[in-house]
């Protein structure tokens, strides 16, 4: 296990060294959160805001949802480049499985983002929205804990998309497909409890997408149970890891290192 820790530590050092990348990432997050909250402000101003959720709480919901996407590094791009450039040849020759090596590095980078976003990001939301959500400060911390789990599952999905390069030579469109499903079923734009009645919301809530993003953020509007979401994350995380391992074995048989 120490091997994995050192790969994570190295990625942490690498990400920490690149301050420009971190600053850009945070500025883009603030802009996006500002736009999303601004859109809800317009909806509430027209009197069409959802009943029972204040604009202030909806702002927190959106701020936390957007944060999740900025926490995880773009691991699918790294894997896609490894496969396409043939660099994977180096990594397959090491006494550490490529899959878990990249996940460790992803977690190392995630830790840098957690420090930045859980301090500056929360401070930004607090100042921009003018205080904690009406339900209190404790659900904010609960949501942040669940965001960590959600981000790890997001990394696992990204690895899955990246490994798709073994077949398609391009992971971007697989990742785009995954993100579309996430936008639809994850509660990214609005809480799942507000989805139209024709959508099977009970089923959607059991899927991994909701437990990654929508469900943790919904704690801030007083919906959901911390332990249930955590349990769901553990089940989905373990399931995806097992499937990923099987998928990786298939990928190893498929591998064709580019460039001769």
């Amino acid at each position, binding site marked *: 296990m*120490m*091997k994995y820790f*050192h*790969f994570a530590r*190295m990625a942490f*050092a*690498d990400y920490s*060294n*690149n301050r420009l990348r971190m600053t850009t990432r945070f500025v883009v997050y603030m802009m996006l959160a500002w736009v999303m909250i601004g859109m809800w402000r317009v909806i509430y101003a027209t009197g069409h805001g959802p009943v029972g959720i204040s604009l202030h709480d909806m702002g927190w919901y959106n701020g936390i949802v957007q944060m999740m996407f900025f926490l995880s590094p773009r691991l699918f791009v790294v894997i896609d480049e490894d496969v396409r*450039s*043939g*660099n*994977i*040849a*180096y*990594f*397959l*020759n*090491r*006494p*550490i*499985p490529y899959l878990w090596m990249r996940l460790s590095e992803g977690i190392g980078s995630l830790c840098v983002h957690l420090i930045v976003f859980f301090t500056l990001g929360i401070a930004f939301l607090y100042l921009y929205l003018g205080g904690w959500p009406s339900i209190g400060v404790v659900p904010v911390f609960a949501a942040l804990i669940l965001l960590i789990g959600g981000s790890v599952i997001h990394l696992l999905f990204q690895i899955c998309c990246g490994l798709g390069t073994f077949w398609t030579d391009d992971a971007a469109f697989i990742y785009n497909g995954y993100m579309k499903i996430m936008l639809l079923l994850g509660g990214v734009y609005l809480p799942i409890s507000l989805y139209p009645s024709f959508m099977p919301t009970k089923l959607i809530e059991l899927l991994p997408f909701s437990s990654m993003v929508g469900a943790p953020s919904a704690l801030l509007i007083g919906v959901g149970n911390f332990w249930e979401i955590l349990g769901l994350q553990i089940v989905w995380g373990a399931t995806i890891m097992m499937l990923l391992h099987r998928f990786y074995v298939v990928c*190893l*048989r498929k*591998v*064709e*290192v580019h*460039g*001769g």
Partner: protein
Amino acid sequence: MACQGRKTCLIWRMTIAVDVKNLRKTFKIRKKAGFWKTLLSPEYTDVEAVKGLSFTLQRGERVAFVGPNGAGKSTTIKMLSGILHPSAGEVSINGFTPWIDRTKMAYQIGTVFGQRSQLWYHLPAKDTFELLSYAYEMERDDFKKRMVTLVDAFDAGALIEKPVRQLSLGERMRCEIIASLLHKPSILFLDEPTVGLDVVSKGVIRDLVKQASEQDGTTVLLTSHDTGDMERVCDRVIVIDHGQLVTDQRVKDLRTGYIHEKVITLAMTEVEIDMALDGVRLVEKMPHHLKISVDTSIVSVEHILQLAMNKTSLEDITVEDPPTEDIIKAIYSGVQSSR
């Protein structure tokens, strides 16, 4: 290669680092067709990259694996290092089957791919070395001693402190090779390690690889398009083309087996002399200077020199073999013409 008798066989096996038998690799390439046909019922063409290669490498041997583009060199190296699964055949690397015992074998092999990088781009190379030492589960003291030895040998003290992005290609390649040798592999696979380097850097890399191999007794299998790599680093050369073995012999024997040509340069007192003979080709002619190429299967060098001395007084004579590149070309063209 065969062995007779149980004891002889055992000793023979113990000295073998790499044993390849009838290795084959076929890639399936999707045929181009219309959108729907490609999507619903794609058709594939089989492309045989490696067609039944067999060879062995003794421990500590340095062998060049040479062939034109598309000959199957890199594919073979990738099968030997466990990256690619072969379609058929057997490979034993220190007793391990690469694609089955990949993790166990990883501790015993090192790889250098000239066009790839294993170093962290934004961090100094020494950080990657440290990370690799954990990956290979090296003891801290062993790692530190090994790093000092390699850094001294490769004269890379200042290089390993700089972020990799600030290194030149030659400097980076030195660090790549250190990274690959760090865990003291008994076999080193080098896939075009000098590609893109200038003449000086190539020389440095060749000498360092040879030196490292001599010191640790590392078996080296090197693929390259550059015959200089073969001449400076290796004792033996395996030439392949279209996935098949063309020749397997000592580098020094290569000249006699495949080419019957010598290049003779004469510096003389006469302004010019006539050397028009069967088997003699003029390469360069200047006042008091003549360079000719002699086909030794038609006329001997001794006869040419005798003739020249009869015609003029010679101030200097140089007899050279043609460049190795020409020998390799001759081997390739021999294969082409026999197809």
